[in-house]
């Protein structure tokens, strides 16, 4: 158990840093989804299946959909302005 936990902790730490350092929002949306999956792995290793299910549903579907829709709306206007 201990090496598995240590690896999940390291993945979450690196994932958080990667989400924050990503400058382009589209790239950040993708890295956020990967960070969400790293969090789910950590929750499973912490023996919390309810929380893992919740984080999976939210970080896999609800949050990326809303985020990408907001990004698309902003990019759409920028594309129209450039024309």
């Amino acid at each position, binding site marked *: 158990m201990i090496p598995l936990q240590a690896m999940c902790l390291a993945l979450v730490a690196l994932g958080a840093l990667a989400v924050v350092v990503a400058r382009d929002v589209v790239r950040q949306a993708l890295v956020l989804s990967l960070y969400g999956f790293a969090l789910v792995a950590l929750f499973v290793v912490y023996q919390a299946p309810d929380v893992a299910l919740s984080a999976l549903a939210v970080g896999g*579907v609800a949050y990326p959909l809303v985020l990408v*829709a907001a990004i698309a709306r902003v990019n759409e206007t920028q594309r129209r302005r450039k024309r």
Partner: protein
Amino acid sequence: MTTRGRTALFLAGAGGLGALLLWGLAGLPDFGHYAGPYGDILVHVAKPQRNIANVVTGVVFDWRGFDTMGEELILFGAVVGVAMLLRETREHDVADVVDAVRSDAVRASGLVAVPVTFVLALSVIAHGHLTPGGGFQGGVVASAAFALVFLSAEYRAYHRIGGTALWDSVEGTGAGAFVGLGLLALALGLAFLENFLPLGTWNTLLSTGSIPLLNWASGVAVAAGFVLVYGEFLQETMAVRHGKAKP
């Protein structure tokens, strides 16, 4: 203030905050040696007092049901806020937007994925008090089934089934049912949100009293809330993309 100055100021503050956090966290019991009494007491009384197998669902919907009611109302308020801020485009402006997915593979896999996801969501909500799951998790998966309709077909299909007239009332019904069940307990002479149905047999669907009812109320409210939020964001994007709203 320049970015550099802001970063330097932040690093100074973060150093202090980090040191304070680490010093405070050092006072906790060692990792893996959870000492607190409440978790042990709840695990001990889960079967005799409530006949529930999933203790976390019991905490969420029974022992701390009041907090969950607050959480449902936070979701309700957030949906109201999103709708108010984004609802400048009127719905019939976007009802005829054509933006179909062209790939047959995506449409076919959507045809399979949508009903399977929906049934999975219903199962997760129904078995919330027995296995990991519950109202919130199942509600988000149910809203994902509707989002899959948009992703695999086209926006018009989502607009037709995710219409606000229906889902507004469904969400209100879910949130209202949660509070209503609490008031019903009050009317029966018990405390607000107290368990008022017979506890049933261990590990069956009809056990644990009124917790499955609260589960369904919260699942319905959460699913409807998320469908509404997706609808608002997608409507905004589609309207701008097809020139129906000022960019």
